[in-house]
């Protein structure tokens, strides 16, 4: 079977309050599902790798083929856990090591 290529995204969450990990990933899933439907969302291979509550920075994993789907969906997020929010993509990388190295 052909290996699935993946990308890791570092995200900055700008939010009024402090959202939980659950609220954040729910908002991401909701945005993807709203825009691309359940079938489209199922093709993304989306997973939350890390969520730093103090800095409001999250790391997501997505399949390379669905990178544009996720990027467009993230840009449409306007609330997380009922509070006004915006998600910015800080960086994208093929490996977690490179992502953290670039973030530093």
């Amino acid at each position, binding site marked *: 079977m052909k290996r699935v290529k993946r990308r890791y995204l570092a995200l900055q969450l700008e939010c009024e309050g402090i959202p939980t990990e659950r609220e954040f990933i729910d908002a991401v899933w909701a945005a993807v599902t709203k*825009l691309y439907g359940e079938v489209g969302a199922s093709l993304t291979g989306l997973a939350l790798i890390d969520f730093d509550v103090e800095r409001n920075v999250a790391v997501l994993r997505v399949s390379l083929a669905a990178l*544009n789907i996720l*990027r467009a969906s*993230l*840009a449409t997020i*306007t609330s997380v856990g009922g509070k006004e929010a915006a998600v*910015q*993509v800080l960086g994208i990388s093929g490996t977690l090591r490179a992502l953290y190295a670039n973030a530093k």
Partner: protein
Amino acid sequence: MTRAFADLHLRVNPKDQRATQQLVTKAARFGYRLISIPFTSKLSEAELTQLKTICSEVGVDFVSRADFHPRSENDLTHFLRKFRRRFEVICVMCDSKEVARQAAKDRRVDLLSFPSFDYHKRFFDRAEAELASCSLAALEVDVKPLLILEGPSRVRLLMSLRREVAIAREFRVPIVVSSGVAEERLMRLPRDLASLAFLFGLDEAQALNAVSTSPAAIVRRNREKLSKRFVAPGITVIKEGKSS
């Protein structure tokens, strides 16, 4: 080479200095190099100068822009005659087919904009695109409605945008993607703004051009035209002789 990103449509009220300062500062922090806030007739020269000062303090190039909602062809030509030489960018909001056709024909119009919430009034079809391609007018797409609309209204808007963008690409009409936002929370990083263009059929390179190269080309062309040295496209005064 790094791209110079532009957002030619920040809809903040320039009279509200605090909000303007915050939005301009955020735009600079996000990496925009060119920004534009539509001019209102009530804005004085002093306020406009102050706006330019705020922008230059944070390292952003301010582009003067006027938006116009003409009721008829005559209204549009009257406006253009009066204001073209005062602003670097002229955007026409096309509410009727008659106005849309005249705006697409007129070389003094830079941006064509259509109502986002009333898809019956989106007149960007093949005839419009053909006229616009000859006059160098660009199609402006504001992303704010994509952020605030939900459900069927967003689906309808996306359908219209996808069709219009395909027509614009066929006729090589430049596409400019702007935010159209007034609130800080709806501002997006330039690349995130570009990623919203994936939703209506632009690929990555085209989307990035729509937030950098295309708006920058319009501003460059108009600044050249508005300079005192400009004679005609490709002809500029490089030295003036003394009259004998």
